[in-house]
């Protein structure tokens, strides 16, 4: 498991764990960022990261990404 922000643009990860306050986690869950969701990193340089999840584009602040853990996936395309 690696923190979300270590994914490079173009890489795909599967969300495994989120060490976040329950309110924040709920917000993310509703946006489709739940455990098991596949995310594609789109932008990761300065400022919030941008990722794709379920065909939506979500921007997340960096501090948040340090507490979301993913496993790197081979790109498969499926949901």
């Amino acid at each position, binding site marked *: 498991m690696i923190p979300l922000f270590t994914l490079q643009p173009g890489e795909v990860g599967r969300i495994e764990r989120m060490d976040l306050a329950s309110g924040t986690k709920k917000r993310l869950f509703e946006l489709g960022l*739940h455990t098991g969701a596949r995310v594609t990193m789109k932008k990761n340089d300065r400022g919030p990261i941008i990722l794709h999840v379920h065909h939506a584009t979500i921007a997340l602040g960096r501090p948040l990404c340090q507490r979301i853990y993913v496993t790197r996936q081979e790109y498969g395309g499926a949901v």
Partner: protein
Amino acid sequence: MNRIALSGNPNIGKTTIFNALTGANQKVGNWPGVTVHRKEGNFTYRNQSYSIVDLPGSYSLGSYSEDEKIATDYILTGDADLILNVVDATNLERNLYLTMQLLEMEVPVVIALNMMDEAERYGLSIDIPQLECLLGVPVIPVIASKGKGLPDLVRTLAETLSLQDDDATDRPRCRQRRRGRMCTPATDENSVPIYEEDRLPHLSQMVVLCEQAGLTPSLWHAMEIYQGAMFPVPLEETPESLLEVRRTLAEDPTAYELAAIDTRYMRIHRVLSKCVIELHGRTAQLTDKIDAVVTHRYWGIPIFALTMLVVFQLTFALGQNLLGNTLDNWVSSFAATAGDALALTPLHPLLIGFLTDGLIAGIGTVLTFIPLIVILYLLLGFLEDIGYMARAAYVMDSFMRRIGLQGKTLISMIVGFGCNVPGVMSTRTLENRNDRMIAMMINPFMSCGAKIPVYGMLIGIFFPKVAGLMTFALYALGFVVAIVIAKLFSKTMFRGDSADFILELPPYRAPILKNVVRNMADNVLSFIKRATTIITVVIAMIYLLSVLPYGVEPYSAGSYLGRIGSFVAPLLAPMGNGNWQAAVGLVAGMPAKEGITATLSMIYAPGAGAGIQEALRTAFTPLSALSYLVMVLLYTPCVAVLSTVYTETKSAFWTIFMAVYTMLVGYGMAVLVFQIGRAWGLG
């Protein structure tokens, strides 16, 4: 009349469907007790008329935010006979979350599967009959922006409502029979979603308990209990199987919260795995390409600044120079004709004076700035509709974060460009109280539409060659002041961590002209409404004060108005506006900012069609005009904004605090501008 409520995630074409269904029939009303606007309208199908209510967009139901709570309460009261759930076909996984909750509530639902064209482009193949079966509700594919599928949608709504009247108990099966569709769902997958129990222990007992306790819809209430709601029965009546759950919840009310969410997602996943095939990976390449440029780490902010500069340049070029001047000529010639005609009538001279100086010259001048406002809001609406404004919030976030604000604050600030009342209200999306208070307190520095006439008038006279740039500079100054004050607040009164940045970036879409125009029309209409109501009252009072005591020469320093102005004027001398007329203008701007333009026109150039430009040219120097503009930009917001701050904070202290501190900031900055300018030998 049957009532339909529209529900769905934000930004998925709900309003487009609403407008398409209702046409021009809509009206804007208020939620009882809450000042969030809701839209309501009617449509007719086969001589039956239906009313339709647009609920605020939310990702889920419950009580997490104000908007969610409003929608939830509305649905649970059963006011609506049917919920039209608009769903984004490109993101079913997330959109169906809200659908799951609606199904838990056991309200009749029809799903409009919107953006089918985009889904196709992404290579998604959706088996709609199968989806209908699995969810147990009608699913109608539509492309709302092109009006496709809407007739089918309307027919289904009408059919579902009439079936419901025929047979309230056996609705879904009835519908399926009628449509003659075959489906082969597993036995547990009927109309009500049945969740797996592995993450929510004894869910089915909980449902039974809710039912026995009279809590309906029982599944919804059961899920609520797992998410921390009160247990429906006293401890001794709790069945044995649920005692463990009860104990866990008593220790930690959030113990099952995420499990409940997970359970819904698991069900969604099961449904989608049976009816959605992804033919190829996503291909939203255009959005990605544009984003690579406009969210670039170095160019992002300059691009945003440049975009806004272009907006203001265009606003002046089209709104003022092209259209505004034409309108100005019409108003002047109308004023002259009307003035001559009125002089011949046997009306009292004071009344004629009020009509010509106050209404025609004063309010007429305000109205000549309508083209400016039309163009500005068309352009801002365009940027918002294509999806750029979310990117602006994104690129500003790291910058804003460094000064103790979050990028989302920028959204409330941009809303403030229209009017600070919705600007202040939109701070509700900030979940953290400190963030919210700061965002609210700095919102008035974002220049609202009502101030545009003052800018148009003074900039048009004193800085015509650089009008767009000057306006941009004023807006930018307001922004900088807002940032500095926010920084100050975050270090002193509203300390604490700011909330995390979470923002969805919608895909770029071609703007829907109708939406852009409608938004602009809303802004312009409220501008006209204020100009013809509250401003008329202000003008009437100012006029009375300027001709009394009886017999005094109107608009002279000897009138009551002149005396009040002369009393305040010395205070304004350090900012180069030591004449009483300028002071009166600022006072008249307190109830509503259009009052400034109307009052200045009336008292500087009384008499229909008199030359306001010449009068202002003698009364102001470019430098004192500039300091006056700065004062107007920053000083105390209008009464409507203050009362909104009061209803939002429920605190007289913060309301008065806002009125006073903005006045001091405005005055301080205006003095600074004037004194620095004078030291440089200007003015």
